[in-house]
C-alpha cells in the first residue's frame, strides 16, 4: 500500500441527493468516502444507477454536493472563492466522457476543441504557438497532426475518444476523471485507448479516477477498486484483492456475472445471486467501511466484521 504516497483527492461522506424535499427524492450518492493517491488509478465499478457517474460529476463539481467534502490537493473544492483558485482547480482536474459522439462540439474544428482550454487559461500567446501545441497533443494521443483542421464527424469512435483525451490533456491536468471512456468502442479499439491512457499516466504522472461497469477492464487498469451499489461504496481495496478475493456478496455476484472468453470456463460457470438484504440498515448499528485485511475495506456493521475476517482467512488457506 502506498502509505507514504500523498493523498491527491479525499472524498469525505459525499452525499448527492436529487429532488431534495420532494416525495421522490433520490439518494444517488449516499455517504461515500474514499481517497485517491497521487499517481494511482482508482477504478469505480457498479451497475447503472449505482451512482458511480454521479460521484465522478460531484467530484469535478458539475453538481453541488448535498453534503460532505471533496478535498483536492488539500483544498476543499466547494470553498474555492477566488477566481484564481477556481481556474487552477479547473486546470488540475479534467474529464473524459463516455460518448465520443456527444462530447465533441460538431461545429468546432478539432483544433478549436482541443485549444479551448488553452485559450481560457491563457496558456498560449500566439496563433503559431497554439497550432504547435495542438499538433503536439494530437501526436501524443496517436493522431495525425494534419487532423487539426477537421471536424469531429470525420473521425471514427476510437479517434474521437483520442480527441477527447487530447482535450483533457491540453491544460496539463494532474487528475483525470474518465467516465466509461471505452464502453462505446469496439473491443480491438478499447485496448488501444486503455493502453494510451496507461502510457500517458507513466509519461506525465497522472492520477485517474476510472469509472466503468466492465470489471475485467477496470481490474486491468486500476491499482485500487471501489465497488458501488445503490449509491453506496460497498468494498474498496487493491485491484487484485477485490477481483480475486471479493469479500462483499455483491462484489462476488458482480464478478461471477462477467462473461469470460473461455468456453470451458463458461460451461462450468456458477452465477452467484445477490441478496441485497445484507445492505439493510439496522437501528443503532451503523454500517461503514471497515478494514478487514490491510487496505481492503468492506461496508459492514461492527458485528459483521468477524464474518468478513473469516471469509478473508479462507482465501488465504486456498
Amino acid at each position, binding site marked *: 500500500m502506498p502509505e507514504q504516497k500523498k493523498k491527491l483527492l479525499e472524498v469525505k461522506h459525499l452525499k448527492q441527493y436529487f429532488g431534495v424535499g420532494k416525495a421522490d427524492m433520490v439518494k444517488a450518492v449516499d455517504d461515500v468516502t474514499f481517497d485517491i493517491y497521487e499517481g494511482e488509478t482508482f477504478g469505480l465499478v457498479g*451497475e*447503472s444507477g449505482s451512482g458511480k457517474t454521479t460521484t465522478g460529476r460531484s467530484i469535478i463539481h458539475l453538481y453541488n454536493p448535498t453534503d460532505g467534502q471533496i478535498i483536492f490537493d488539500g483544498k476543499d473544492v466547494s470553498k474555492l472563492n477566488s477566481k484564481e483558485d477556481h481556474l487552477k482547480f479547473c486546470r488540475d482536474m479534467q474529464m473524459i466522457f463516455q460518448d465520443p459522439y456527444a462530447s465533441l462540439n460538431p461545429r468546432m474544428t478539432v483544433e478549436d476543441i482541443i485549444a479551448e482550454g488553452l485559450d481560457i487559461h491563457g496558456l498560449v500567446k500566439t496563433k503559431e504557438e497554439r497550432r504547435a501545441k495542438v499538433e503536439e497533443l494530437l501526436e501524443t494521443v496517436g493522431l495525425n497532426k494534419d487532423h487539426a483542421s477537421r471536424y469531429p464527424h470525420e473521425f*471514427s*469512435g*476510437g*479517434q474521437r475518444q483520442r480527441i477527447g483525451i487530447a482535450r483533457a490533456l491540453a491544460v496539463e491536468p494532474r487528475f483525470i476523471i474518465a467516465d466509461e471512456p471505452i464502453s462505446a468502442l*469496439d*473491443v*480491438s*479499439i*478499447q*485496448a*488501444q485507448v*486503455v*493502453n494510451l491512457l496507461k502510457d500517458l499516466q507513466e509519461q506525465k504522472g497522472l492520477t485517474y479516477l476510472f469509472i466503468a*461497469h*466492465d*470489471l*475485467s*477492464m477496470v*481490474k*486491468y487498469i486500476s491499482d485500487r477498486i471501489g465497488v458501488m451499489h445503490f449509491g453506496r461504496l460497498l468494498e474498496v481495496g487493491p485491484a487484485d484483492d477485490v*477481483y*480475486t478475493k471479493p469479500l462483499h456478496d455483491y462484489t462476488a*455476484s*458482480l464478478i*461471477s*456475472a*462477467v*462473461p*469470460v*472468453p*473461455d*468456453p*470451458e*470456463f*463458461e*460451461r462450468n*460457470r456458477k*452465477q452467484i445471486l*445477490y441478496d441485497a438484504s445484507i445492505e439493510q440498515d439496522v437501528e443503532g448499528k451503523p454500517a461503514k467501511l471497515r478494514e478487514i485485511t490491510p487496505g481492503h475495506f468492506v461496508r459492514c456493521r461492527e458485528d459483521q466484521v468477524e464474518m468478513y475476517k473469516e471469509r478473508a482467512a479462507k482465501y488465504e488457506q486456498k
Partner: protein
Amino acid sequence: MGERILDVKNLKINFHTYAGDVKAIRDVSFHLDKGETLAIVGESGSGKSVTTKSLMGLLANNAEVVGGSIMYRGEDLLKKTEKEMQEIRGKDIAMIFQDPMTSLDPTMKIGRQIAEPLMIHKNVDKKKAWAQALEILKLVGIANAEERINDYPHQFSGGQRQRIVIAIALVCYPEILIADEPTTALDVTIQAQILNLMKELQQKIETSIIFITHDLGVVAGMADRVAVMYAGQIIEYGTVDEIFYNPKHPYTWGLLNSMPTLSSTKLEAIPGTPPDLLDPPKGDPFAARNPYAMKIDAEKQPPFFKVSDTHYAATWLLHKDAPKITPPDEILRRQKIWQEMQAAAK
C-alpha cells in the same frame, strides 16, 4: 447436429451512398442447423448486422443485394416479395434487437404487443392471444404477470423490457431466432440472467439462434459454432472450442488477445482501424493491421483453408508454403488447452 435449416451462399450486398457504393457484405456464406446457436462476431462495420437484416428482409432502401442466395425451406428468401416476407417475419424467423428502450412501442400495452404476432400470423382470436401472451410473459420471468400485462413499456426496467422483447420474438415459436447484440445495453448481472433465459427457452421451444455480438465472453457461453467477420467477410469459422482454443486467423488472435484476462499485464491492441469498404483492399482486408502479413496478403485474397471438417480460416498463413510463425503468448496458452482437450478425447 440436426438438419440444415438455413443456407446462405455467396451473399453480396452494396449500399449506395453519395460517395459511391459501400461494399458492406462481400461474399459471405454460412449455414445454420436445427437447434444450434451460431454466433457471428465482429467489430462495428464488419457487416454482421447487415447480414442478419438481409435474412429478415429488413435492409435499408439504399441497400442492394448484388448476388448470392439465402435458402430457407428450399426457397430463396431474397426472391420473396415484401408480402411473402411479412408472412415469414415474426412467425418463422424472429428477431431481438439491441436496444430494448427503442424496440417497443411506447403507446401500446405490452400485452397487446406480445399478442399481436399471434393474431396476425396464427389467426388466434384476441382472448386466446392474450392468454398465450400471459403464459409467455410468465415464461420469460416477469413477476406478477397478470397485472403487468396491462402496463406500458416505460413502466419496466431495461432488463424487463428485454425480456418482453424476447417474449414477442418467441410467442409464435419461430424456427430461427436472430439476436442482434441483445444484451449490449444491459448490466452484467442482468446480461447473465437474459443469456440464461435464452438458453433455457431455446431448449423448450427448439429454436435455432443466430447470435450477433462483439463480446467474445458472451460468445464463449452461448455459441455452438462461431463465425468471425471482418470487413464484410467471414474470415474464420468453426466450433466454439476450435475458435477459442485453436484459432488460426491473426484477426481472431488479435480479438482474443485484446481482451483482459486475470493475468494480463499489457493489453495487445490491434493497431489501426478496419479498411474503408467504399474501396476495399485488393488482398487480405486485414493485411494492413496484421503483424504477420506477407507479401501475398497485399495482392491476393486468401481462400478458405480447411483446418478440420468444421473449422475453416481464410489466411495465407495456412498455405503449405507459408513460413512458420509463432502466435502471441495468449494464443499459445489457448492452443495448449486445445492439445490437452484433444489428448483427453482420445
